[in-house]
């Protein structure tokens, strides 16, 4: 779970917040409601998650409930991954 969170954090920093310290992007920092991610960057993150974790997301799963914070996104990925 921690790995997923860190990977998502690194991706967001590299793609959308270049130069920002990873320490400033916490697991519970709102991403969508704060404007860090807009619709296009949300889609970029969706592609990243799908390609790296072999999951397929639906449109409603990109809502605030599941896709506003790193911890929520990581939890969604864990739920959608096939049981090991």
């Amino acid at each position, binding site marked *: 779970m921690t790995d997923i969170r860190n990977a998502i954090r690194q991706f967001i920093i590299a793609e959308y917040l270049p130069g920002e310290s990873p320490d400033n992007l916490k697991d519970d*920092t709102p991403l969508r409601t*704060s*404007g860090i991610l807009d619709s296009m960057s949300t889609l970029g993150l969706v592609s990243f998650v799908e390609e790296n974790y072999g999951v397929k997301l639906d449109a*409603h799963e990109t809502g605030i409930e599941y896709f506003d914070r790193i911890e929520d996104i990581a939890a969604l990925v864990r739920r959608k991954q096939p049981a090991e």
Partner: protein
Amino acid sequence: MSVEASTLTGSIETKARPGIVADARERHAACSLVGFAITLVQLAALMVVFRVFQLEDRRFRILAAICFAGFAVHYWLPFRYKEWFWIALSLGGSYFLLDALSATMVIVIAVGLYGVIASALPYRTRIAIVILIGLALGYGRATLGFGLPNGFWQVLGAIFMFRLSVYLYDLRHAKSAPTLREYLAYFLVLPNYYFLLFPVMDYQTLRKTYYQRDIHRIVQQGIDWMLRGTVQLLLYRAVFHLKPSAAPDEITSFGLLAGYMVGTYLLYLRVSGQFHIIVGLLHLFGYDLPETHRRYLLARTLTDFWRRINIYWKDYMVKMVYFPVYFKLRRSGERRAQVIATALVFLATWLLHSYQWFWLRGTWLFTWTDTLFWAILGGLVIVNLLMEQKRRRVPRTGWRAQAVVALQTAGTFCLIVVLWSFWNAPTVGTWVELVTFWRVG
């Protein structure tokens, strides 16, 4: 990272851990006499400004007085009673802002709709019944029927015309049945009885941000936004009085034309000012909603403008149109899906703008200037979007980079000002006459 982003580090709140969520929220509602006193002083100062400058009208000041007095009680209540108190305040307050018949009918229709939505009927059946009710109410609005006043139809439209679709969308994917408390807190919101142009709040966002951080920080944010809204409403007043006339034969120089166009755009300060105040009022009651406008006059590109102005509308369109279309089409190509989804967002915005006009004014708005405005804006945003995708975001430093940003911002402002004046002209011919009169006479 924005200040809001770095400070919004709320609690861990997922449906998987409702107990933890409730505890965190309760903790965030902890009272402090000093914090309360500081808030009350600021609210009193705001109230004085409202009165001294006669902001909006008397009904607005009644609304503010009810909300501020309500805050003073709400703040000290045990957490489990807080939202019910806000609902009761909204229901009771509606009788101070509307006539008794209108206030009662809004509540009756809201409860009736909840009865359908929360019933055990299949989802599609419930949607069909809600649509039928909507059509009947639409007939009533068009004919001013059922013996109900125009004001009632406006408020009913302002409450349900967009938020109902958000609620039904979220209901489809909800893990549990909607509660009456959450339903009433989403729809029957006290400021909505006064403000007919109301931000399209997202249901999930409203629920998720409820007491998501310490109440004093939420309230302070709300006061800051109310102050910003107040300043914008006062600026609006100045613009309204200083703006040159719209009569083409009075626009006799380029300076007057530029002044008219900029003034027409700046009249939007009224909407952004009202939206800041609305969201600020909701913050007083624990709803830590995001801001509705983010320095839209400083947009660097048209896409940036679309993301900064009326953010709630943009988010509504992304949720209801953009993402569903994109996810359906993405197998046939990412770029194609994005272009089609963006085009449909602007098509929907154009249609819904007219739909809003119907509920608030009783007639449909289909004019060439409105249609062309959304078509041009949509087309330019698509082009801008495709260009942005080719570029990678890199930090810009140095005076040259800053000069480029300044030029981009100025260019975008000029383009929007021209488009905005076109949008506000009654006909294409009127606008052409307006912009050419100073040269051709």
